[in-house]
């Protein structure tokens, strides 16, 4: 089995998101990056497949320098190969550009499965997995919480999540692109010392070349949501807040 996993660097939404002066992008200096959470699940799923079948996992890190750290972590977790794909700040969330940029390299790599998170938090378009599969002319199924490969490596049986906890079972001919919602187990933890070690010995291939000129979604402006309603804030320390919640519960006859 030959698997590729695509790991995107996305703005960490726990940090404050500062809108740049142009009003339609984030202020680059203020962005803190993390690996897109569902891409971490895609990596975990690939490593689980590797443990069940003989094979290799190639981690493909997209973004700025933060992507190199993500690759070191991936190798420390068990990825066999690391590929860094530098992406200009403006294009990082643009899956139309990313899919066009990656298609040739993924085709040349001859992977049986390409795994990626079913969506990214900076996504405004159709999503990376579906666009990639369409460009490669291979099947795509997303929203997956389980992937099994048959012994011959010619097809996968996947579990696709539907609302209400229902799971669709589908058989997919390989090669295919799979959009992961959650791996079969939580992404593994790897100690910092192992990441440091991996970083020292890391051999990263780089996908060079300019980004393709592909039309994408035009962002006119970014804005903070102005909700029609905002919660009435309960002030004070935990004691005061607890007292107010107890009153609310009493008023509603819920006690």
């Amino acid at each position: 089995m030959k698997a590729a996993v695509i790991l995107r660097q996305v703005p960490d939404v726990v940090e404050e998101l500062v809108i740049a002066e142009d009003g339609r992008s984030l202020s680059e200096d203020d962005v803190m990056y993390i690996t897109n959470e569902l891409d971490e699940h895609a990596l975990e799923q690939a490593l689980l497949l590797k443990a069940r079948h003989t094979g290799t996992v190639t981690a493909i890190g997209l973004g700025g320098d933060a992507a190199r750290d993500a690759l070191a972590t991936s190798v420390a977790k068990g990825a066999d190969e690391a590929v860094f794909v530098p992406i200009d700040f403006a294009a990082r969330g643009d899956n139309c550009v990313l899919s066009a940029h990656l298609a040739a390299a993924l085709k040349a790599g001859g992977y049986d499965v390409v795994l990626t998170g079913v969506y990214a938090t900076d996504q405004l378009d159709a999503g990376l997995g579906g666009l990639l599969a369409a460009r490669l002319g291979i099947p795509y199924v997303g929203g997956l919480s389980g992937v099994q490969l048959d012994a011959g490596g010619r097809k996968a049986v996947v579990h696709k999540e539907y609302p209400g906890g229902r799971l669709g079972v589908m058989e997919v001919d390989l090669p295919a692109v799979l959009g992961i919602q959650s791996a079969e187990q939580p992404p593994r933890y790897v100690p910092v010392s192992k990441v440091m070690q991996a970083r020292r010995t890391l051999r990263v291939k780089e996908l060079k070349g300019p980004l393709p000129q592909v039309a994408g979604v035009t962002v006119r402006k970014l804005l903070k949501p102005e909700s029609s309603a905002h919660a009435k804030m309960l002030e004070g320390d935990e004691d005061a807040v607890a007292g107010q919640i107890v009153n609310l519960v009493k008023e509603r006859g819920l006690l």
Partner: protein
Amino acid sequence: MSPGGIVVVAEQEKGELADITLEMLACGRETADRTGWPLTCLLLTDRAAPFKALPLAADRLVIVEDPSLGAFNPEVHARVLAHHLKAMAPALVLLGNTATGMDLAGPLSLLLGGMAVSGCVRVAVEGDAVVATSRLYGGKLLAQTSVPAALALVLLMPGSYPRQKGMRDRAPKVEVQGGAGLAGPLRVRPKGIIEPKAEDVDLRKVPVLVAAGRGVQTKDNLRMIEDLARTLGGAVCATRPVVDQGWLPRSRQVGRSGVTVKPRLYLALGISGAPEHVEGMKDSDLVVAVNTDASAPIFDVAHYGATVDLLDLIPVLTEKLKAAKGGK
């Protein structure tokens, strides 16, 4: 079809329309009334009969009926939709920002040459552009986007438009067609559905839900949340990340891929309010949210909020509730 039409790609399950279909029709109706464009509902199914007389707010209902269209198959659905949409050449196509719509957006946009926009909560047409407002960065920001109004594929977030406006007092003109566009070998084959196990508790029937988000930090902390829930005569539920950690069973997950709940009280602890969670709890009677991040989107959904540390709050709150119960 005249140029500039709007097509809603319906979602159905076992002979019933999904809520998102009515919400897309409400969005499509509003846009159609503003632009004067015709609104078509395009429905793929293995059985047309249950849908023929529905009073949908579309001008026309096109049902594509074929035995292969029973279970969702991204490959088959994309092929059939591409065939029909190419012929209809609408300006705007509405898809659900759902498990099925998200599978179709990529292939359809390349097959049709139209641009897809996801996470949309508002849609408008300005000249020859579709202008959409989308949720971005876990709902922390909104993006106003524009794409050409030529087979523009807009993925609508569930809950963005009132579903009752997707119906009206009369049924649209109905056409039933065969499954054209199906030729060719299939590389994706649906093999069935695994129904969720009937597990410990049905969250939809519990009047008080205490919901744990990422802010609970550790599995051990769930114990005091369970104590709090017991005191309130309710149950513990959680967001997806908590369930993915294996801290609670899947049956306790509230949100898009979990359960949709409407309890009398929803106490959201350490929950940021990502759109896919909010979808499953926003209709609760009373929402009280506790999160140290004052800018967390959950406070736009909650009726009451507090930014104290939940680990400090919970023991105090539980004690006060026990005391209040005892003193009744």
